[in-house]
């Protein structure tokens, strides 16, 4: 009896996760795929994709999404890496920094967007501070529809503030997995701090960097709430267009087509990361 229990226990323990993923990820994903290739009347067709490609916002949404990805992800990784290395150097009071850095993790992305809207809006904190300091005479319209650079900067800042801590937590966990002997051996054999980081710490941190990159990239493709809060539709992004097509245009098929594009991009990005950053089999400790 005991062996039988032992055999089924792992499956029993996995069951809640599998059920959760099936219900909330797999089924919606299949539904979205089906929706995207179903004609509005009946039968299969690629009409939805044609409508999506012909949409005036499609190329903008595509460009903006990739632009945000290219700006935000490296910025977050670098910031988080510097913060993680700082905290890991165990200076006095390093624990407090971790708590401060982690605060934004507790705030939902829409709330974060609204919070930053209060900073960047015409009568927001930024303008009033600058005016009080005498730097500007008139409020600057940071988020005006014709100020693309302003909107982009605001979104990059807000997103970095909101989600860098997630990368940080992953990287700190990864750093703590590296035995201290490796740091000491690097010191002893003549590496200064920078060369130690480049030659020893970063390569050993690769598995964590890979996880962080994958998670951040997935979220970057889905960037929506912060963009919507700060720019409305002045800055179309793929996930936002999916929402607009569904909620405003009431066309779930084209919305699904956008979702499928996001899915496709995500899969491609993950494959690239796994290829580029993956551990060679020979390196994996038996």
């Amino acid at each position: 009896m005991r062996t039988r229990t032992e055999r089924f226990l792992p499956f029993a323990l996995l069951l809640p996760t599998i059920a959760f993923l099936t219900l909330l990820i797999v089924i919606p994903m299949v539904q979205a795929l089906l929706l995207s290739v179903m004609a509005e009347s009946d039968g299969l067709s690629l009409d939805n994709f044609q409508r999506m490609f012909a949409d005036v916002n499609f190329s903008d949404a595509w460009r903006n999404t990739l632009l945000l990805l290219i700006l935000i992800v490296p910025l977050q990784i670098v910031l988080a890496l510097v913060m993680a290395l700082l905290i890991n150097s165990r200076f006095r009071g390093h624990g407090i920094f971790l708590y401060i850095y982690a605060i934004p993790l507790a705030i939902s992305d829409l709330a974060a967007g609204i919070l930053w809207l209060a900073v960047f809006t015409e009568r927001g904190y930024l303008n009033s501070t600058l005016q009080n300091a005498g730097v500007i005479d008139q409020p600057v319209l940071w988020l005006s529809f014709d100020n693309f650079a302003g909107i982009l900067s605001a979104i990059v800042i807000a997103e970095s503030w909101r989600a860098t801590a997630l990368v940080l937590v992953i990287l700190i966990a990864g750093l703590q997995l590296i035995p201290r002997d490796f740091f000491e051996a690097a010191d002893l054999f003549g590496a200064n701090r920078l060369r130690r980081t480049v030659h020893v710490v970063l390569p050993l941190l690769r598995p964590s960097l890979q996880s962080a990159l994958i998670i951040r990239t997935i979220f970057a493709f889905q960037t929506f709430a912060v963009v919507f809060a700060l720019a409305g539709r002045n800055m179309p992004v793929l996930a936002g267009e999916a929402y607009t097509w569904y909620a405003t245009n009431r066309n779930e098929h084209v919305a699904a087509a956008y979702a499928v594009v996001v899915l496709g991009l995500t899969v491609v990005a993950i494959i690239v990361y796994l290829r580029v950053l993956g551990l060679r089999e020979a390196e994996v400790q038996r």
Partner: protein
Amino acid sequence: MSSIAIDAVSKIFGKTPALKDIALDIRDGEFMVLLGPSGCGKTTLLRCVAGLEQVNSGRIRIGERDVTDLAPRDRNIAMVFQSYAVFPHMTVGSNIGFGLRMKRRPKPEIERRVREGAELLGLVPFLDRYPAQLSGGQRQRVAVARALVMDAPVLLMDEPLSNLDALLRLQARADLKRLHKEVKRTTIYVTHDQVEAMSMGDRIAVMREGAIEQLGAPMEIYDNPATQFVGGFIGSPPMNFLRGAIRDGSFTGDGFAVPITRMRGDLQGREMVLGVRAEHITIADDGIPARVMVVEPLGSHALVTVLVGKTAVKVQAPIDVAVRPDQAINLHFDEATLRWMDAGTGSAIQR
């Protein structure tokens, strides 16, 4: 010149003193073993010499240079870590050449010296492999090669053999000793294994609770332990100890009397501990009565545990010794080999 002078070094972790005013001079080219039980401070002392720990007081000099306040990379030392700390993301060749690359040596020189190091340790066939593809013994040799190619005059080793299985350890022990004879680096070697210490060290510093209990050549320490602790730590089996006092020409304790012919008069009646090695006790027709507890045949000889009075004593006997458990026998102690310690302090007393 690369002698090492450790002068009045103290190290405190929080409120726990780890090293208490250590003084130790290591000669150029010497193989110095720091030996002691875990927590005695031997690894801490090594890490202070390496610069991986800062001393609280005292100075450390390597050659003519005071290195006390220098970073590890500026001390011109190389080290073999207990865990080896061989980088898993680098091939064997890159690992061996790591220190040379960090010191920005020219490429041809690095290649040549990596090759030499690999040849010295039999690693040439593995230069392109990753550490995960090597056995524990091979990884250990990579760590040694990485340290040796540095050409640093000082080599530090922190229990480099403790992660190897018994058979491999025997081999690696001899290999390291041969290597030291070839490269003549001043070496500090930390171990808790007294056999390693005996077989490899030019001198041994036996440490206990953050202080050096005895410093000397291996056989000197073995024959004349400065304290009861050293006698009990060095040797396998450890030295036997009997507690008692000299009265009327014999050393008398709880249920035994050992006849003694020569002894300083002023030691009469003083509480002492007698120390005697297993190989200096013989089973005889008459002498000190004892009762056999266990007989362990060990191939080359037999180890017989007997009760002398109420104290267990280990006796090294010929393999064909004809004794059985519970048998009453007699022992003879070779008087010239007996060692005497103060019963209170454990310090050796000269006869």
